[in-house]
């Protein structure tokens, strides 16, 4: 079974469809309801930064479903603003979802995975961190935290046969970048070794790689797309 956060749209939706089509039992969560037809899918409406709501979701997953083998921690929010114009509340909201939410999902999933002595966790970083994008200070910082969490959790969970890795996508054509000016996207692409927008398939390829049983010796790694390092 695979649990996908931020499943309603964008990359999350694509992950649900991809692993559903591959025959996985898929569980998704997001703040809003979502439905997918033709695949084995159950949706939970959850704010991932709310500890008791997350624990309740995992309690239901444990009762109703089989072993949780894979967590794809895709949920995240973005905020583009100059630091001097960024309100504290925006910082707290972003950190709560991108860092606290990520942590809570990993912790609760790892409790199940540790007991079954197997698990694959894939977190979502961003090229905003290594490119140190202006206007993305808080987002880049939150994703830097995700990379650190990935590295430390990889070490703490290794004894349970759980791997923890991260994929760092480039901009791809989703709602996530719909409000970003075209000129800014162009500037970002110019800093990539391969200067094009990412495709869903680019992300799926990396996630497929991380979750393969043969990838049991790969943990604590972040793969950035587009040749960013």
């Amino acid at each position: 079974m695979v649990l996908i956060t931020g499943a309603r749209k964008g990359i999350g939706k694509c992950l649900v469809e991809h692993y559903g089509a591959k025959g996985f039992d898929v569980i998704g969560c997001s703040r809003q309801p979502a439905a997918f037809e033709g695949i084995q899918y159950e949706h939970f409406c959850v704010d991932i930064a709310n500890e008791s709501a997350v624990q309740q979701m995992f309690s239901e997953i444990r009762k109703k479903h089989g072993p949780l083998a894979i967590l794809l921690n895709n949920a995240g929010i973005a905020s583009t603003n100059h630091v001097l114009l960024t309100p504290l509340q925006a910082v707290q909201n972003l950190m709560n979802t991108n860092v606290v939410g990520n942590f809570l999902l990993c912790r609760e999933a790892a409790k199940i995975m540790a007991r079954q002595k197997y698990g694959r966790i894939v977190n979502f970083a961003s090229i905003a961190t290594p490119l140190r994008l202006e206007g993305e200070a808080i987002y880049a910082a939150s994703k830097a935290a995700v990379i650190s969490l990935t590295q430390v959790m990889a070490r703490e969970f290794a004894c349970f046969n759980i791997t923890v890795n991260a994929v760092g996508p480039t901009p791809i054509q989703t709602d996530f970048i719909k409000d970003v000016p075209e000129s800014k996207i162009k500037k970002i692409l110019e800093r990539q070794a391969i200067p094009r927008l990412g495709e869903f398939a680019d992300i799926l390829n990396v996630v497929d790689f991380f979750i393969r049983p043969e990838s049991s010796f790969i943990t604590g790694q972040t793969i950035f797309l587009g040749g960013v390092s």
Partner: protein
Amino acid sequence: MTELAQITESLLKAVDEVNQGLPANKRVPREQHAVLFGMHAEVDSLVLINLVIVAERTIESDFGRTISLADERALLEEKSPFRSISSMADYVAKLLREESN
């Protein structure tokens, strides 16, 4: 059987489950007052972490209630609730009581 005795049974079930995967010299003593945490701990920290995770689940399945043993208060208590099965049972009883109110 009192609730505390039931909780202790549930925690000992968790001990049995954790011990299944361990060599004899690493096992958690199946004894209520054995020291699990602190200076004279008889188990290593990783085994204790495993025990806490499994205990949360055995309590959930035996009592139908979801509790988080490693919450802030557990870490702040002057005497750690994880120092023995007996102290863990007391802490679980407290959490279950609070959840009922």
